[in-house]
């Protein structure tokens, strides 16, 4: 394999992981925009999506696509429960208490997952076989295509949802100004609950579609969550194209770094980028001044 082929290979696999980071990042952004909370438990929801999928498939022999669907719905319910049980009852939410409670919640979810499903690493079967395809000298798995397709589909769907449906518009109103949104009759608390529902569902999907490639276990949530957060930060916490570009940029840099520099430091790359962005351009790479929300 010559260098250009190698490069294509890195780009393609970076694109696929980048798409996953983008989805997770969008989950962060949706909750952040409607509540001002960075949900530390987002990564755990991604893990729960994958693990629930594996569990349904292995233990109950549910057909693959039904298992995927059920896992997404189940995770979304976990997200809703999390909001109802941990976030909403907080009497005087301060930024510090919200940080601590979402961290506590994420540890709790991870612990429960460990108790329920054990410490083993599981793999979900690929959605449509493992026969590799050759693209410009590089190999591509069918699962990569699924990831690309589902990511594009989901991002288009969220865009349309925020643009054209009444609930989507209400969520955007909450993002601009929660009090004003309340004044024009939007049920802000329901919107907050709903934003947890959507981002848990998106996170779960991300967790499921990556599981056939990278395996999944009870402790994958923290890394995936942090990298998704990194994507969202690069994108300036928008739930649109900014975060998608952020995720893809991160995925490709990571894959190039792992391939060309050192695979051991692969994970460090994401965090160095995260720190640099936070230090130098906390509003994100693609926005000028006040970043666009939702």
């Amino acid at each position, binding site marked *: 394999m010559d260098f250009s082929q190698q490069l294509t290979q890195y780009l393609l696999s970076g694109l696929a992981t980048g798409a996953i980071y983008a989805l997770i990042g969008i989950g962060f952004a949706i909750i952040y925009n409607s509540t001002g*909370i*960075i949900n*530390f438990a987002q990564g755990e929801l991604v893990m729960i999506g994958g693990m629930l999928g594996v569990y349904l498939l292995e233990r109950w022999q549910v057909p693959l696509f039904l298992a995927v669907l059920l896992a997404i719905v189940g995770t979304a319910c976990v997200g809703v429960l999390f909001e109802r049980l*941990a976030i909403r*009852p*907080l009497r*005087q939410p301060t*930024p*510090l*208490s*919200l*940080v*601590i*409670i979402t*961290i*506590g*919640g*994420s*540890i*709790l*979810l*991870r*612990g*429960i997952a*460990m*108790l329920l499903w054990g410490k083993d690493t599981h793999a979900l079967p690929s959605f449509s076989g493992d026969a590799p395809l050759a693209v410009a000298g590089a190999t591509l798995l069918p699962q990569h295509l699924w990831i690309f397709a589902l990511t594009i589909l989901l991002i288009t769907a969220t865009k349309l949802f925020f643009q054209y449906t009444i609930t989507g518009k209400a969520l955007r109103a909450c993002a601009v100004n929660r009090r004003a949104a309340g004044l024009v009759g939007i049920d802000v608390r329901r919107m907050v609950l709903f934003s947890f529902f959507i981002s848990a569902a998106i996170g779960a999907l991300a967790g499921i579609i990556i599981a056939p490639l990278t395996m999944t276990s009870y402790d994958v949530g*923290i890394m995936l969550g*942090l990298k998704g*957060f990194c994507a969202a*930060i690069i994108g300036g916490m928008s739930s649109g194209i900014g975060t998608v570009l952020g995720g893809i940029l991160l995925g490709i840099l990571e894959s190039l770094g792992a391939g060309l520099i*050192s695979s*051991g*430091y692969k*994970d*460090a790359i994401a*965090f*160095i980028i*995260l*720190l640099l962005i*936070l*230090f130098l351009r*906390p509003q994100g790479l693609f926005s000028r001044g006040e970043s666009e929300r939702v």
Partner: protein
Amino acid sequence: MRREWFKFALYALIVLLAPLCVNGGYLLNVLVFVGINTLLAVGLNLLLGFAGQISLGQAAFYGLGAYGSGVLTASYGWNPWLALVAAALTVGVLAFAIGFPILKLKGHYLAMATLGFGIIVFIVFNEYVDITGGPSGLPGIPNLTAAGMTFDSDLKNFYLIWAVVLTVVLLAINLVHSRIGRALRAIHDSEVAARVLGVNARLLKVQIFTCSAVISCIAGSLYAHTVTFISPASFGFHFSIELLTMVIIGGLGSIYGSCLGAALLTLLPEMLRTFQDYDIVVYGFLLVAMTMFLPGGLVQGGGLLLSQLKRLWPGRGGNNA
């Protein structure tokens, strides 16, 4: 002030008498770790409880102290005390340097940035095998020595480490009752208001961050010389969360609260052997439950309970009379 001295004397007395109450060598060993964790929790509480700035990267400074001391003594044959001071100075400079950009961030962003820093350091411990020994660890770290005595038994280490702990607790109590302590609390309540009143909030936040990093670093050095073998697993994200739980349980902004939290979270898992696998569930639950129901921690909870009892007491006395 006299009350503070009384409280400190009481705490010191409990600490000094503790080895007499445990007859087993094993429990004494656990008490040594209570001391190390108390140092770490007090250091974090100065930052989190008083200045209101969260750090999820404390384990990184702790690890840098341990690896600094470990590598300098085991691989390069430095004097352990010199290595401890060198590590503390280096970490101090590092914390001061990254403190300025990192503490510009607030709330969730600060948490994420410190967490990211912690993970980078953790990855370096694992990957820089030539220096750190990688995941399999770094053996052969010598014990500390002083005046011809080697600190090689649990009892000797107990007194050494708790002497450091008591000094740090005393300094911390002094600090929080000084002008600086009041300025820190002012930053916690409102940074803008504190700045209006002439507090140099940015510098002060960085200074307290550095201070807590150096305390963690010293704790790390002491840990390395006590156990004589270190591996990256002790300095991961999980340990930062454990420290956070200690501080939250004890009570934000209470030095003795952190002492209590550190003691509880170090002793409990040792007492309940079955606890082992459930510890992350318990930490998560404690963090959520404490934040929801008892944001002031056990110390405040105890105070509330006491005042409730006091209110009940004369009432009951009145009925009887």
